[in-house]
């Protein structure tokens, strides 16, 4: 028998935490706790990303997703801190139906996950021989339109198609801008003339 393969250990650790707290999100009725569980779940997922060698994406996950959830949390606190809104009960019949449907969904997806032979995982020697790969620069270049990781691609036709994601990057940037403006517009404070008059 071999010694412990530590990445596997951490995988089980992180995935266990992530799944547990995802379940916590599902089952908890307090919106603030849900947000807290969600943060932990997402942070653990970022650990899974680090384990899979996607360190930049992991850091992004920590920074953006967790930050985004932070805002969710704030809103949760702001909008639901009145007691009657902290817990909004769902009827138990719905819970039962949802549980069964969820079970079926999970079963189907899980069956798909183990349905492909090539997804079984590497043997240990191969896994240990995989070179550490730095991804930040290739990722950045990819976003700027140059796929430096594909220079070794033997098929010239394939290499032609791999022109990077500059265009998408630009679209997403503009999209973000539009969203910012749109969100600011949607959420702007409405002038309530009636209430002012009433106060006066």
């Amino acid at each position, binding site marked *: *028998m*071999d010694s412990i*393969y530590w*990445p*596997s250990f951490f*995988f*089980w650790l992180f*995935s266990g935490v992530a*799944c547990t707290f*995802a379940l916590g*999100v599902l089952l908890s009725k307090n919106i603030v706790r849900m947000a807290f569980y*969600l943060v932990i779940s*997402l942070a653990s*997922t970022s650990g899974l*990303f680090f384990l*899979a060698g*996607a360190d*930049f*994406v992991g850091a992004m996950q920590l920074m953006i*997703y967790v930050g*985004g*959830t932070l*805002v*969710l949390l704030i*809103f*949760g606190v702001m909008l*639901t801190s009145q007691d009657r*809104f902290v817990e909004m009960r*769902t009827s138990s019949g719905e819970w039962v139906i*949802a549980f069964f449907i*969820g079970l079926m969904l*999970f079963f189907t997806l*899980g069956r*798909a*996950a*183990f349905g*492909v032979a*090539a*997804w*079984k*995982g*590497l*043997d*240990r020697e191969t896994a240990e021989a*995989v070179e550490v790969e730095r*991804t930040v620069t*290739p*990722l950045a270049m*990819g*976003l700027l339109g140059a*796929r430096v990781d594909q220079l070794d691609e033997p098929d010239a036709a394939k290499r032609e198609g791999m022109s990077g994601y500059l265009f*998408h990057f630009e679209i*997403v940037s503009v999209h*973000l801008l539009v*969203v910012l403006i*749109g*969100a600011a517009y*949607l*959420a702007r404070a*409405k002038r309530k003339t009636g209430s002012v008059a009433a106060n006066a």
Partner: protein
Amino acid sequence: MLNPILANLLTEPVGVSHYVLVGAFMFTCGVLCMATKRNALGILMGIELVLNGANLNFIAFGSRYLRNDANTLGLDGQLISLFVIVLAAAEAAVALAIVLNFYNNNDSVDVDRADQLSG
């Protein structure tokens, strides 16, 4: 009896399947969250979970530690998950704005009260 299984889990590298399974679990949790929460913010959290589960799949398919053959997505997986993250942030911003508006109009974030469009 338990030892070989536990030992295998800890001594052998995990594969894409495991990641996909975790992703599937988070996805299911997210969907159920969306289906059962009456709080609009709860639904948003469900969406975050769903997106995160999907992201996990992209990362898994792109990783060279899990599946070292020519069919990995490579960097494309990471790039796509980056886009997902960014768009999720955008989505959250808009959704929160909508929730805020909804709150302003209804004094509540209960989505069951948003049924004016029922047939």
